[in-house]
């Protein structure tokens, strides 16, 4: 680190404390005289540039693993996006794929083989050259996982997108990897996979150093049978080609990374980044106000205005989320299409968004955000019309309404649902106006709530949603309605078949048309009500003048601009 000793900087409290600290140090040194500090002297770096090149960001939890291939949570990915790069990146500010370690690629007519031209002169942090062999090493590593390495809790993304491993080749999408010289590589697929290129932009498929993977036994996650332990690699030796290299991880406290001197791209202003672990949302805000951190993610909707007024920078992300009201058709009333239509007419989405969701939130008409392929402008919508809702209820045989369980999670904040309790109370009041009495069924988010809603048929109306990983329609509606699920309790073979067909089409335009039709099909069937696309925002100290907010969280800190 560059700032040793008493170089505690920041606003407010930190400055005052620095004075105290300095005073104490001097006194202590006078007393003890000759105690040697083990730390090196100030390494410079600061005097030269005008800005404090250390950036402190509050994370809501530790990363689950430093090996992105074995991670699927946002905090792991936030860190690995700094350390690693994939063949494919993301066009800034969008969810669309863009060249990164692969400068270009060409997919064969049948969609089964893709040739990637790799960037030259790139090295991993440990000096290993990045070449075609390294790419194949990574692909073969994923494909050859066995046992607990295949569990959804460890390798969720590979398992769910590439669908099979070497020991079950009949399901596998991946087939083989061929290195054609140093800088060209061909990936052969066994089945067409339209989202292949977009999927490669996920941090889970980032390129990792073959040398380090082997040296630190990245695949040894055996541990005991009850819980896989992390590998030595995932605990402290992640090696990628990204702008930052891993320094240290004080679990539960903070994780530090610093700039990789031989990085091929633009290094930006920041030399050191510290991820500070602060799990309580209010505590993150207070840490920002106290000058302890430079920024944090998922600002509570209530805080955005007051932080803005106090001079902090609020950066919203373009919404790439969906919040919906699920209707479980295992409940007899909800299985009646007229009742579901009535509920759709009973809900005033505009009021819900205005009263409970953060600024920048868009009202939803379907289950994908506007920027995703297959968004249907002309989809069937259900206008807010309580009178019509009452009529429909009467026609369905419930002139006096009915009572239904409403499941919602508590004490949780998701990017698509910052305050579930408020969304619930708001909807509860709206539904009661058309005579639907709601029986509240709150549950702790994880695992109670998710288990109730996804693992049992024992729920009625419920709130859930999704944050997209990359620009892929199947990543939204395929997840929700691709198969018979306890969550919705319906069997619609026509819809399932349509989604299955669309997934296998390799021509993008043709696929987009299919998805448009599917979106209409879903809207007519009305298995759930799309409520909103909430926009999550980040908050930063005034010195952070620009932050590369990305709808899919593809935010690399070299693009941050600091003013002091």
């Amino acid at each position, binding site marked *: 680190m560059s700032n040793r000793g008493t170089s*505690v900087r920041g606003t407010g*409290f930190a400055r005052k404390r620095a004075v105290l600290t300095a005073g*104490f140090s001097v006194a202590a040194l006078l007393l003890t005289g000759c105690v040697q500090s083990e730390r090196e002297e100030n390494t410079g770096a600061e005097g030269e540039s005008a800005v404090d090149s250390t950036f*402190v960001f509050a994370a809501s939890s530790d990363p689950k693993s430093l090996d992105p291939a074995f991670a699927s949570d946002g905090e792991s990915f936030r860190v690995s996006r700094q350390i690693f790069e994939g063949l494919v990146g993301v066009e800034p500010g969008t969810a669309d794929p863009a060249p990164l370690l692969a400068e270009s690629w060409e997919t064969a007519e049948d969609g089964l083989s893709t040739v990637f031209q790799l960037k030259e002169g790139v090295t991993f942090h440990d000096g290993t050259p990045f070449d075609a062999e390294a790419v194949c090493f990574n692909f073969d590593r994923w494909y050859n996982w066995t046992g607990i390495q295949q569990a959804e809790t460890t390798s969720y993304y590979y398992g769910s997108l590439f669908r099979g491993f070497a020991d079950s080749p009949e399901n596998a999408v991946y087939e083989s990897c061929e290195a054609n010289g140093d800088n060209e590589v061909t990936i052969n697929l066994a089945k067409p996979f339209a989202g292949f290129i977009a999927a490669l932009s996920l941090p889970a498929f980032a390129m990792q150093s073959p040398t380090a993977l082997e040296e630190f036994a990245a695949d040894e996650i055996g541990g*005991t049978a009850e*819980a896989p332990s992390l590998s030595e690699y995932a605990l402290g030796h992640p090696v990628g080609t990204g702008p930052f290299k891993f320094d240290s991880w004080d679990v539960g406290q903070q994780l530090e990374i610093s700039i990789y001197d031989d990085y091929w791209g633009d290094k930006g202003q920041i030399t050191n980044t510290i991820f500070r672990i602060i799990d309580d949302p209010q505590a993150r805000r207070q*840490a920002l106000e106290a000058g302890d951190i430079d920024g944090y993610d998922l600002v509570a909707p209530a805080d955005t205005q007051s932080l803005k007024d106090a001079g902090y920078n609020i950066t919203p992300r373009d919404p790439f989320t969906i919040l919906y009201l699920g209707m479980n058709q295992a409940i007899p009333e909800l299985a009646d299409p007229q009742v579901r239509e009535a509920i759709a007419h009973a809900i005033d989405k505009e009021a819900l968004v205005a009263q409970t969701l953060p600024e920048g939130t868009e009202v939803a008409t379907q289950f994908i955000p506007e920027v995703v392929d297959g968004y249907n402008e002309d989809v069937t919508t259900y206008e807010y019309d309580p009178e019509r809702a009452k009529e429909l209820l009467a026609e369905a045989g419930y002139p006096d309404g009915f009572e239904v369980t409403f499941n919602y999670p508590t004490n949780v904040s998701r990017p698509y649902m910052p305050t579930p309790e408020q969304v619930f109370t708001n909807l509860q009041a709206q539904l009661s106006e058309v005579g639907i009495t709601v029986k509240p069924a709150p549950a702790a988010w994880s695992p109670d709530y998710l288990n109730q809603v996804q693992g049992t048929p024992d729920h009625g109306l419920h709130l859930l949603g999704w944050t997209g990983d990359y620009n892929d329609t199947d990543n939204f509606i395929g997840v929700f309605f691709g198969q018979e699920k306890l969550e919705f309790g319906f069997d619609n073979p026509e819809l399932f078949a349509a989604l299955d067909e669309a997934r296998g089409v390799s021509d993008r335009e043709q696929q987009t048309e299919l998805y448009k039709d599917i979106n209409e099909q879903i809207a007519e069937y009305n298995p759930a009500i799309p409520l909103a696309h909430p926009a999550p925002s980040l908050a930063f100290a005034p010195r952070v003048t620009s932050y590369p907010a990305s709808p899919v969280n593809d935010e690399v800190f070299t693009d941050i601009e600091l003013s002091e």
Partner: protein
Amino acid sequence: MLRVIGKRIALLIPTLFGLSILLFLWVRSLPGGPATALLGEKATPEAIARVNELYGFDRPLLTQYLTYVGRLLQGDFGVSINTGRPVLEEFATRFPATLELTVVALVFAIGVGVPLGYFAARYYGRFLDHSSVVLSLIGITVPVFFLAFILKYIFAIQWGILPPDGRQDARIDATHYTQFYVLDGILTGEYDAAWDAFLHLILPGLALGTIPLAIIVRITRASVLEVQNADYVRTARAKGLMERTIRGSFILRNAMLPVVTTIGLQLGLLISGAVLTETVFAFNGIGRFLRDAIFGLDYPVLQGFIIFIAILYALINLIVDLSYSVIDPRVRVQ
């Protein structure tokens, strides 16, 4: 003495054994399961079934318990489901934090509580007595997490003189050997780091310290009341000893015995309180980790941590009992 210690430790074994069974049954009766907790929105019934199979949660309870106890006897507490690290290691890195915090809380509680209780007894029934009792009680009747929030709001946000969270400033570069940050700073000569770590302890320590404060005030007061009317104190007065000698050597010393017992018994309260204060101050100790484990259904951590806490609790009580003979030579440990 050694025999007494041996006997006490032997008595601990059946308690711990019973506790391990209760804990085992308890974690498995929690609604949901670790597979759902790990998978989040991505939990499909198939994924849950597969994870349960791989982790061994689908085996019969008795088999699971026997495996667990078998490993326990070899000193293997398992691996945390949420972090993938050994439970023992998780405890070892976080316990020093909680201990540091507890020490600060206790020093505060004793430093304020004993004098307050002493003077309350000395001026029994008068204004000072009533106000000191009420004052100490207000500390305990304000929910500790709320008090923590108020302290943080005033000292860290409004006045900005103390840090709002964590154990050390993120920008300080400190070397850690023992995980006791203050101690580490002193050992390595990084006094600024030690001082910074100490500043981080003040607010959570203060909040946590109010819990034992009321009890220490009350016990000290009751104990001093009892002692100052004892025959030997009257005898000393009758002999014309100086009031200062009487108060110092007779009353205070003799009144300390129940106070020491009480302080020993505070550990349980402090651990409970630590769950709340560490959460508010994002303080990386066992309390906060335990809370996360409850919500993440981290079976091995819940089982392991609560057993560690029970062992600690028992050991502290033993030390308290042994310390009687130091304070009061008449007491022989039996």
